[in-house]
């Protein structure tokens, strides 16, 4: 800088960088990460984020189980995952350092608030000695600043209490990181002024903290350590972009689907559960878009109210995570028996039972496909990214209403919270699939099937001359009346199965995400593992390995070419965040010797884990 009295080295270029912000769950690491993400986005880089926070809302201060982290991977290339290894770790206290250090690259940078490394915090984190004072961090570049004091000095003019001043530390750290990568502060300052509109003093203090952190980077007399970087812009399709989380994608996709189907009203019924509640919160603000939200007394009632709404002609949607989906099972059975549309969003988390509520897993696949009494088929879809959440929600509405069936969408805790850049679609470009409610009494009975889709008619109560009764008892194929006739039950069971199987003719053929349509190895994934698998396959292909990536969005029914496609590879490897579920479905369905690569740590796959598995096979 020409105006600076300190001589600064030129900014160095980095193709991509992984930063992890870590601190106490009360330190504001999630908002720090989100704001850094926004500035990254506005600067034109591609990115992928991974919020990782504890189940405890406010664990005791300074403890390892209270560490909350937010990771962002950003760069000029096609960023597909939140990143395997961390380049820069921001550790606001000793607990954050001890928990997160293992993911830091050798030679990576660790930025700490030295004031937080006091005896009390060190002992809570299990450090016998202060790691800042010995050589235990010798393999890393350690930047220790008294962030506590620097923040306190910066906010002093605003007259905050020491507690309030302490809460601004995250903004100081954010300011420093924004300087480090040459990013703007404008959006962050706007956001702070909006967030604290009713507390202008707090807003001003936080802005001061951001600015102070930024200025510190600009002027600190640590020239040899404080290098600024430049991360190139990503080359992406032209258009208008924003960041989108999986939750937002699903919520807006449901609204778009409602509109595409021409249905007046959506009734979304939920019950609070981590990590699915955010969807209820998001939709609760969308009444202006025809969304009625209902917080039910339990998961069962939530699914019941959604199904009741569908019966009445609205779009019934319910949402939960694994343990709650288990409770909705009987209502799914009723929806299948009465052939009513119902959308069920499952934000999967680690289990069984309560498991690890804030950690992601893909272990509800069996529950979704098979987890009901009797022969009870339905459609199951899984989004591959946060952006895909929008499209998959629209597709769920299309299939549910066209085939009069429940559709389960398998999201997960990672997709729900992660964020990516998203090219914003225009409503005019979205699909249209208007539903028709039956109003004609001529020849009507409630289970009269459309010859093509095998779907029964959707009738709104209130329609004259179509009064009818439906329920969970088996019904006659030709009249809809209760029937216990053995042959009729066989016929109805087959009709229900054929209807769902027939969806395979109405969905895209299985494509290949990367590579050839035959060869030595196909790596087959589903859901949120898309990025990690794709990158791993890319790396292997760059090293001339004969490998392809296939990602399955339609899990029930499978695309009709999937079996033939998989048989064109010598080997099939199935990485998934469970103990081997899709792999068993593929083996059962197609009699192929697919091999499993399970991961059940509650964390997303690293690219290297999949790359190594490919390396071993090929």
């Amino acid at each position, binding site marked *: 800088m020409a105006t600076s009295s300190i001589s600064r080295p030129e900014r160095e270029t980095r193709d991509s960088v992984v930063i992890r912000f870590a601190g106490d769950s009360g330190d504001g690491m999630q908002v720090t990460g989100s704001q850094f993400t926004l500035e990254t986005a506005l600067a034109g880089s591609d990115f992928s984020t991974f919020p990782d926070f504890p189940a405890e809302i406010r664990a005791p201060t300074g403890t390892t189980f209270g560490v909350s982290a937010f990771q962002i991977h950003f760069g000029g290339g096609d960023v597909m995952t939140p990143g395997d290894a961390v380049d820069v770790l921001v550790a606001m206290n000793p607990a954050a350092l001890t928990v997160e250090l293992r993911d830091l690259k050798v030679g990576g940078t660790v930025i700490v608030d030295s004031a937080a490394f006091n005896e009390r915090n060190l002992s809570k984190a299990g450090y016998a000695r202060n790691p800042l004072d010995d050589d235990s961090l010798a393999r890393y570049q350690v930047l220790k600043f008294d962030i506590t004091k620097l923040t306190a000095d910066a906010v002093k003019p605003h007259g905050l209490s020491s507690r309030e001043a302490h809460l601004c530390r995250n903004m100081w750290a954010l300011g420093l990181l924004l300087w480090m990568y040459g990013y703007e502060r404008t959006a962050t300052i706007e956001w702070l002024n909006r967030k604290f509109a009713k507390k202008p003093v707090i807003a001003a203090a936080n802005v001061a903290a951001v600015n102070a952190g930024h200025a510190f980077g600009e002027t600190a007399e640590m020239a040899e350590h404080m290098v600024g970087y430049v991360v190139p812009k990503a080359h992406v399709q032209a258009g208008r972009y924003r960041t989108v989380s999986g939750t937002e994608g699903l919520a807006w996709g449901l609204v778009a689907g409602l509109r595409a189907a021409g249905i007046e009203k959506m009734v979304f019924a939920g019950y609070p559960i981590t990590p699915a509640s955010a969807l209820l919160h998001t939709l609760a603000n969308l009444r202006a878009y025809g969304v009625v939200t*209902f917080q039910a*007394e339990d998961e069962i009632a939530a699914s019941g109210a959604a199904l*009741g709404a569908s019966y009445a002609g609205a779009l019934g949607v319910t949402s939960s995570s694994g343990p709650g989906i288990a409770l909705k099972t009987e209502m799914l059975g009723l929806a299948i028996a009465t052939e009513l549309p119902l959308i069920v969003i499952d934000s999967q988390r680690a289990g069984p039972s309560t498991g690890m509520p804030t950690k992601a897993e893909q272990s509800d696949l069996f529950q979704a496909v098979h987890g009901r009494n009797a022969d009870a088929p339905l459609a199951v879809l899984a989004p591959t990214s946060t952006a895909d959440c929008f499209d998959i929600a629209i597709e769920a509405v299309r299939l549910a209403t066209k085939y009069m069936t429940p559709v389960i969408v398998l999201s997960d805790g990672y997709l729900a919270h992660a964020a990516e850049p998203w090219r914003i679609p225009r409503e005019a470009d979205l699909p249209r699939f208007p539903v028709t409610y039956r109003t004609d009494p001529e020849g009507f009975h409630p289970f009269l099937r459309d010859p093509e889709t095998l779907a029964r008619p959707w009738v709104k109560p209130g329609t004259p001359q179509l009064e009818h009764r439906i*329920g969970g008892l088996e019904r006659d194929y030709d009249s809809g009346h209760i029937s216990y006739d053995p042959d009729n039950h066989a016929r109805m069971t087959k009709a229900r199965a054929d209807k769902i199987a027939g969806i395979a003719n109405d969905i895209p053929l299985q494509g290949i995400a990367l590579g050839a349509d035959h060869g030595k190895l196909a790596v087959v994934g589903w859901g949120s593992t898309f990025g990690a698998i794709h990158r791993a396959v890319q790396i292997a292909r760059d090293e001339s390995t004969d490998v392809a990536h296939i990602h399955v969005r339609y899990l029930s029914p499978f695309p009709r070419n999937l079996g033939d496609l998989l048989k064109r590879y010598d080997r099939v490897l199935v990485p998934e965040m469970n103990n081997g579920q899709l792999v068993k479905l593929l083996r059962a369905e197609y009699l192929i010797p697919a091999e499993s690569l399970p991961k059940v740590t509650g964390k997303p796959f690293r690219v290297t884990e999949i790359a190594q598995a490919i390396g071993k096979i090929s």
Partner: protein
Amino acid sequence: MTVTTITDAQLAPKDYASDQEVRWCPGCGDYAILKAVQKACADMGLVRERTVFVSGIGCAARFPYYMSTYGFHTVHGRAPAIATGIKLANPDLDVWVMTGDGDGLSIGGNHMLHVLRRNVDLKIILFNNEIYGLTKGQYSPTSRRGTRSPSTPLGSIENPVSACAFALGAGARFVARSIDTLQAHLIATLKRAHAHRGASFIEILQNCVVFNDAVFDHITGKEVAPEAQVLVEHGKPLVFGKNKEKALRLKPGTIALEVVAATAPDVLVHDETNRPLAQLLAALEPPFPTAMGVLYCSPTESYEHDFYAQKGAALGKGDLDALLNSERTWEVVP
């Protein structure tokens, strides 16, 4: 939300019957309830296509199949939840929940609690026969202590729940009790329930002729009825007995009812808007007379009314493009 009243005066009770053969046991109290409901429907001129009967599981839950209206026979205990969804989707529908003591107070007890406290505009008719009939005679949550059944061969050791006391405790704004065989009273009570906006709860003492026959005879028997029932009516003294010679009043110095001569001072006059009184009446059991009629009626706005009346609650077709472009966006130029 506007409550439009459309009636169909042309229909007779039989027009509310579906073409399906009724399959309750011969002599079941449910036949009398079906008859009373169909008569009440005709008297009120309910429009069939705007009327929905929702049920859970159990003998009572077969009810919707026998009505010529819309009907949804759902899963055990969940009818209140499904009916809530129906009303949220279309508040103009006239929705009835037909349930039983097991369906409504055991497996569905939680839903009953919440549908009542939310005050969803539903008619909730609970057939209480103090037994699980469809599963062949196990004791139910309303069975009295000592009830011998296949699952309690030595007699039940559980304390029964009082349906009306439960409903009042849950915050219901309309609570009534009647009897399957008391046709005129039952029909009048059904009409009162229908006129009420919000959740209206009726417990009907219903005889299960196969598994729990005569369980209410000490209340409903022709001989004992005048002594064993007090028919409550708003604004009228709480008198009973063959010649209406007995009455109820507050026992001086206590919060309890006592039986006195009808001529005694301070005989209670029924005030159906008085919740504590309703709670005392609901809890009466032998040797006191059992209270029949509208124990409590104190209307307030229904759940769905309040939902749609909330400020900024208008459902609409908001601008989707504006929603997707809310917050920060950026342009990538080719």
